[in-house]
């Protein structure tokens, strides 16, 4: 079976990989590129654990065919911290105990980043709806929402 050659900017690096046409971007990221931060919780776009940014837009990587990523700029959770410094969302998730098992955390961080990039001062309701595509079974969301509120505050005050 012939494989398709894909070039994309992933977490700031020019990256090339080969993929079959029917492979999801999620599987390509995990198996071909070696970035296992995005998780598969459902494979059908219902849980948000594979959320990544594709050209600044939060997307379930399981719903995108890998060849569609050709030429795109992709950010995964591995690219969220810059030069070793945590993004305020990462820091606030840690300080606010906004994770228990942590499997959903990469997806929540990416979805929350997409929210704060477009709305630096969201209400609690706006945060809850922006993150409604991301399932967490451990926390009941309380501490996640508070961590996003705190991160938004810190980003605004910077």
């Amino acid at each position, binding site marked *: 079976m012939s494989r398709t050659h894909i070039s994309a900017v992933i977490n700031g690096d020019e990256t090339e990989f080969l993929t*079959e046409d*029917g492979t999801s971007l999620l*599987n390509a990221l*995990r*198996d071909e590129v070696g*970035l*296992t*931060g*995005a*998780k*598969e*919780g*459902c*494979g*059908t776009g*219902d*849980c948000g*654990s594979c959320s990544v940014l594709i050209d600044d837009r939060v997307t379930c990587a399981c719903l995108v065919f890998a060849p569609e990523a050709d030429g795109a700029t992709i950010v*995964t*959770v*591995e690219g*969220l*911290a810059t030069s070793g410094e*945590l993004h305020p969302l*990462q820091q606030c*998730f*840690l*300080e*606010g*105990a906004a*994770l*228990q*098992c*942590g*499997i*959903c*955390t*990469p997806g929540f*961080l990416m979805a929350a980043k997409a929210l704060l990039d477009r709305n630096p001062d969201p209400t609690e*309701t706006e*945060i*809850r*709806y922006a*993150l*409604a*595509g*991301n*399932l*967490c*079974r*451990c*926390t*009941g*969301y*309380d*501490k*996640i*929402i*508070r961590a996003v509120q705190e991160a938004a505050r810190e980003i605004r005050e910077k």
Partner: protein
Amino acid sequence: MAITEENPGYKWVGTRPIRPDGLEKVTGKARFGADLALPGMLHGKVVRSPHAHAEIVSIDTSAAEAMPGVKAVITGADFPDLAANGAHAGDIDVATNTIARDKVLYEGHVVAAVAAITREQAEAAAKAVEITYEVLPHVLTVDEAMADGAPLLHDGMITKGVDPAPEDPSNIASKILHERGDLDQGFGEADSVVEREFTTKPVHQGYIEPHAAVADANSDGRANLWCSSQGHFQMRAYTATVLGVSPGNIKVTAAEIGGGFGGKTVIYLEPLAVRLSQRAGRPVKLVMDRDEVFRATGPTSGTRIKVKMGATKDGKMTAAEVWMAYEAGAYAGSPVGAAGMTAIACYDIPNFVVEGYDVVCNKPRVAAYRAPGAPMAAFAVESVVDELARNLEIDPIDIRLANAAVEGTQASYGPKFPRIGFVETLEAIKDHPNYSEELGPNQGRGVSAGFWFNAGMMSSATVHINENGTATVVTGSPDIGGSRQSMALMAAEELGIPYESIKPVVADTETVGFNDVTGGSRVTLATGAAVVDACRLVVEDLRSRAAKTWDVELDQVEWVEGQAQHIDGAQPPLSLGDLAKKSGRTGGPISANASLNSRGVGAGFSTQLCDVEVDPETGVTRVIRYLTAQDAGRAISPDYVEGQMQGGVVQGIGWALNEEYIHDTDGVMENPSFLDYRIPVASDLPMIDCSIVEVPNPAHPYGVRGVGEVGIVPPMAAVGNAINDAVDVRMTELPMSPIKVLEAITDQSD
């Protein structure tokens, strides 16, 4: 400030530092079950039954074996026949649930498995395994399974717990019974008697990470296994049993686990992965799809429960009669036993009969789910208690206070309670501002309470002192919700060194002593006690080394804030770092092991307060405010105690309002996805207010009780009672979905 029970003077216990494993989890580095890849690794795929109940007539694997990239195909015939070997019935059930032999018992039951070079090749080969079935009639509910003449899942199932034993087999695996006093007399003394019947559906634990296992078997019979589970020693034991090998031949390494809630205390993929790896001679990875998780793992039981309770006009409960039937799924072992023990355990009731049945049916074998069995029973009992309070015009907290179990109460399931904190949780709710918050139109408030035993069981821990005076704390309890932080906090407290100087580690089955599963709310309690024991041994050793160094008797040396001090100050103190540096001259490396079988669990109680708003036009119920009060004994790590409380509540809200297994008439699950099996999302919920009650467990060095489970016991009745308060309908079926609430409102106005 004086050192008291409320202020024990701890430096680390009860603080909120950043968890030791946090950084890896916010940066994507943490390795969960599906994240491991080995050189030459194959991908596996499981073949599952499309039928709820069928004989396997034949399996032809030849076409699958001939497909490109396929390296191994296995069926039940590739595993030892434990039944023929005279194995224990429970082990036979584990083995045949892992892979069917002559008969499939539910849709999704494993029949075969394949391994191939790519995922796609494995999927294609799985479809090419040819299986001929003879479909049998099936039973899906306790009603169907208990009916006269029902098709039988197991021809030899004679109900246990009935004397004399029945002559004929049935789908009833066992009966449980608890009784005390005289029911007729008790109901005769009551001024109000309420009798209701309830039904609940199977619900899934809903962990976000699907099951995953990677096996690398060697030709000498040994194998390495990496898997995401709640207990890698348990995985080793089950896997060895199913494969018919010594546990010592299998090394299991715990991956980070993406949620379990009881559902990852059992095996599914592990023996299949090992056998495929043995056959193929290469490492094999098996990962479930989400629909496989729903069809073939978990869930917890669907139930039918009848409750009759009576109370006098001053609210004293005089009698309770509870009848319950719990679906076990395909094999004996529903949590009806725990349900029977917990159902009325919150209360001191002089006359009762609690009767329960464990019933098999053609659905996936149930697995533990957070306080297994208790939430359904509590939904029924706490709804009836609410109705009694309404009939008698008594405040819902006051009726519970009037009957609350306290220290010395003979629990309904037998023993006398030691010191417990149920009353304190009731008072915490009553004293909270939420209790008097004004309600608007179509809004209502509900109270509910719950009990869970908490477990102890076996744990081991090792503490190593590094050469610079920092410490490594090694346990074998997979950390599912922050327990490494609890271990580090307790070790810091014991050793007197900073939390940051301690590295807590979850080690593999060859690197640390045996640990039972991460379940039963036991890790901070039991594994924590092992860590405390090991730290105390280390401190004893350190004092002895200081005494030697100073040439004084041991009793002249105290351990204070991380350093050895001479009681008269006759010597300059020796810090842990000083002693570690000189360890070569004082007896060698400093380290200690401790192993224990729990020294006393501490019962857990939770009382919860739920405010809802019901839309009378649509029947949609929205939780607008929620408060949970829970006795933690001692909150070692308050952030993660709150996390357990909030998480339990929200799972309960999902169970109350949305979640259910839906099967078609053929016994095929119709909603095996997170789209159709709808767990709560952020926009469904308010903040979940927490009140941590601390009534220390006298049997634990820090008073820990365990907090993981009891939080899921009260929510269903709390929501149901709030709906009743809002729109005056008594909901007796879960989930209380919009259509059911709307029907109830419509029936009531007819």
